[in-house]
């Protein structure tokens, strides 16, 4: 695994795309087939599942290192990463064995079904056989947390360099539900694949944020303007009499959306539709809030109540394949014509067309301003004369999002960050006023500069009222503007609401705590946008 650990170190220690691509291409041309297949799998998120609980690993590592558990925990809080902490506290390996990556993964997979009495000696032996970055990689594989800063695109490019194959063709090959246990390097990458996997989606086209006035895009008639729906981006694939639903993260989600099954009979075979999954109010024929859809995220099976209360539709905005023909080279104007059949379907079929909006840029600006009322996040602007291009491709697709919602809130608790930020207070709990009482309603840890975090850290140290483990209660004095994307009712929170993507937009040094927003203000927002 030495070579793979070296690759990991190289990828982890540079921000240069060129250096990363070269390092990865080097590995992919040199490593054994089974190892490079695993490398591609790991870098595309096909990680082995967690093999041992974090609690056991901590205990075993502390025991092996001869440390009390509290000292292990203190070390962990400085390092901020369990796999790394374990790698660092263990004594150096007493014997060295350069087994291949795929071999180690086999060992790890075999342990998954064993009990702790079998796992422990196997893991202790591994720790004593691996050093430095190899031990770190092993621990990451063991905890199911292997990640490295390599995008799918970068990996595909490196693979193209290593195999002298076309990048787009490789991107296509790499999609789908394969794992190194179900295929081989030869079959996945090298063999001609006439019976192309029926389920394979196309690489999704992604949009850039619009940072200039839309007028600069030229006449609005050249563009398809539609709502930016607040759901889950998906491709619906119907091929060979079967249907598949893929997320943008290349996750096969068909089982999570059984309510889409009726679509199968109303779409011709050989069709791939790009659209947004939305929880749907069939009576009103409009989307439900995003929170309704959230109940399906992270579940393998969907309870009946969710299917009943928050059924789903696919709101189609593009078609990449129709009646077996790949349409991606065609213009959007042309592709969209193939979607018109959706308007003729019965209303109980869970497929809807995302309608294009007519008007001047000024009309569109007004629609955007009211987008929240339509359960949308803003507008999408797509060039009508452009083909469908996988990945991010500047100039054809723009997202024109609404400005975030904001409230001014008072910091009441602070907690230290992790890793490099372990000695800075970066995670805060915020409250709003309810009469004379402060009601906590959200946490946030991002959005400020390092200098601001340092200033606040000094202030927290000086002004701590109480400590609860890593958390410090502070006097309600500092006010922050909290930006967020949405607000929803929540019975789990004391405030009765929860924010989506909260972050600190700025530190309001100008504002006294008494002038922060009230709970009533938030309830009003909930009423309006929830």
């Amino acid at each position, binding site marked *: 695994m030495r070579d793979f650990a070296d690759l990991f170190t190289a990828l982890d*220690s540079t921000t240069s795309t060129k*250096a990363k691509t070269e390092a990865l291409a080097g590995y992919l041309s040199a490593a054994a087939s089974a190892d490079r297949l695993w490398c591609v799998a790991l870098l595309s998120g096909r990680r082995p599942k967690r093999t041992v609980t974090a609690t056991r690993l901590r205990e075993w590592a502390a025991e092996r290192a001869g440390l*009390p558990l509290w*000292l292990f925990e203190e070390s962990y809080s400085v390092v*901020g*990463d369990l796999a*790394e902490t374990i790698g660092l*506290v263990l004594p150096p390996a007493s014997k060295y064995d350069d087994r291949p990556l795929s071999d180690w993964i086999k060992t790890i997979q075999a342990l998954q079904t064993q009990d702790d009495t079998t796992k422990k000696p196997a893991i202790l032996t591994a720790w004593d056989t691996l050093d430095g970055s190899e031990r770190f990689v092993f621990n990451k594989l063991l905890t199911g947390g292997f990640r490295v800063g390599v995008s799918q695109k970068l990996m595909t490019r490196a693979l193209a360099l290593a195999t002298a194959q076309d990048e787009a063709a490789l991107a296509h090959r790499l999609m789908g539900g394969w794992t190194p246990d179900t295929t081989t390097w030869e079959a996945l990458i090298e063999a001609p694949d006439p019976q192309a996997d029926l389920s394979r989606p196309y690489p999704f086209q992604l949009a850039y944020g619009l940072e200039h006035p839309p007028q600069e895009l030229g006449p609005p008639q050249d563009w398809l303007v539609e709502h930016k729906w607040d759901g889950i981006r998906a491709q619906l694939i119907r091929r060979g009499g079967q249907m598949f639903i893929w997320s943008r993260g290349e996750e096969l989600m068909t089982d999570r959306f059984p309510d889409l099954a009726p679509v199968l009979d109303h779409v011709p075979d050989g069709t791939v539709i790009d659209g947004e999954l939305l929880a749907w109010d069939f009576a009103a024929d409009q989307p439900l809030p995003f929170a309704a859809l959230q109940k399906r995220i992270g579940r393998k099976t969907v309870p009946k109540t969710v299917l009943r209360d928050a059924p789903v539709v696919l709101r189609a905005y593009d078609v990449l394949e129709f009646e077996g023909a790949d349409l991606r080279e065609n213009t959007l104007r042309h592709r969209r014509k193939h979607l018109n059949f959706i308007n003729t379907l019965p209303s109980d079929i869970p497929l809807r067309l995302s309608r294009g909006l007519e008007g001047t840029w000024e009309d569109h600006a007004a629609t955007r301003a009211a987008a929240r009322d339509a359960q949308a996040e803003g507008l999408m602007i797509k060039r009508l004369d452009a083909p469908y291009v996988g990945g991010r491709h500047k100039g054809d697709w723009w997202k024109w999002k609404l400005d975030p919602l904001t409230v001014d809130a008072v910091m009441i608790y602070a907690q230290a960050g992790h890793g*490099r930020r372990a*000695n800075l207070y970066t995670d805060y709990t915020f409250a709003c006023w309810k009469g004379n009482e402060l009601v906590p309603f959200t946490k946030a840890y991002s959005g400020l500069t390092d200098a601001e975090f340092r200033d606040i850290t000094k202030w927290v140290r000086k002004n701590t009222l109480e400590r609860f483990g890593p958390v410090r209660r502070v006097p309600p004095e500092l006010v922050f503007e909290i930006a967020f994307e949405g607000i929803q009712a929540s019975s789990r929170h004391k405030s009765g609401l929860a924010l989506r993507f909260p972050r600190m937009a700025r530190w309001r040094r100008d504002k006294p705590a008494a002038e922060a927003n009230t709970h009533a203000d938030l309830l009003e927002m909930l009423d309006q946008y929830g």
Partner: protein
Amino acid sequence: MVLTLKPQGLYCPAGDFFIDPWRPVDRALITHAHSDHARPGHKRYLATPLTKAVMRHRLGDLTCQTINYATKQKIGDATVSYHPAGHVPGSAQIRVEVGGEVWVVSGDYKTTDDGLSTPFEPVRCHGFITECTFGLPIFRWTPEDQLRADITAWWQRCAAEGKIAILGAYALGKAQRLMAGLNPDLGPILTHGAVEATNQVLREHGITLPDTCVVTKDTDRKAYPGALVIAPPAALGSAWARKFGPRAEAFASGWMALRGVRRRRALSTGFIVSDHADWPGLLEAIQATGAEKVLATHGYTATFSKYLDTLGYDAGILETEFTGEDADPEADPEKIAS
């Protein structure tokens, strides 16, 4: 009480002197020349000859008496001697004996032989004041010969790729110790002015360093293909470094053990090396003193002293006053990480 804490710093009432005081005093015993230990403004200094030389260079003229290692000197009712700390050339632990009770103030130290500084010698004592900059079990240094091999391999790789190798290391101690481990036959060794100034002081005092060439504003930086440049960490990524053209940068520090720090600095290469003791080094040194009382200072003091307690020592914390600006750069993770 042999030693006690005053607002000016650590004080010995029997001898009426301070050790590494942070505010001006009448008589200061200095462990080593790093600026968090050797501060300006004291009336009289006592230090090893090398420490005196470096202090003169850094702080200007000062009244300093010198003392060699292992020489006993009576100051008031206290008997004082200096012993090698292995931290940087000239660095010392200070032993103070009053009425048969012996305390040792470690200053900064490391237990491994860096090939340049006089190696650390444990001194038996009743009470030991230990630094613990790296007092957590996550810190374990690369063995010296491995380190030298790693740096040499990196330098050769850079040269083969047509790049200048720029190695960031603190100007006093770390830079010279790394230099001493280099083979000058592999290529020219260039230095930043701050590093060369220390080199000169050490060479004048009989320390052998490989030949170096200082980079000035008139230096033709393209005229040294295959060179290794040793510079203070602040020079990494700077306009000064960019003038070398194609180059690779590396940083040598104990903090390079942490992935978060390496990533934050976005350095392709980090060498895990420190002039402070690592975790095994600290524990080994403390045990070798035979001390019953151990006070931790400089670093992860709370955690470290708590752990020493569980090992059966009577451990505590010695609070020191930290000054941000002048502190030993390696003692401050904030500074090196930014």
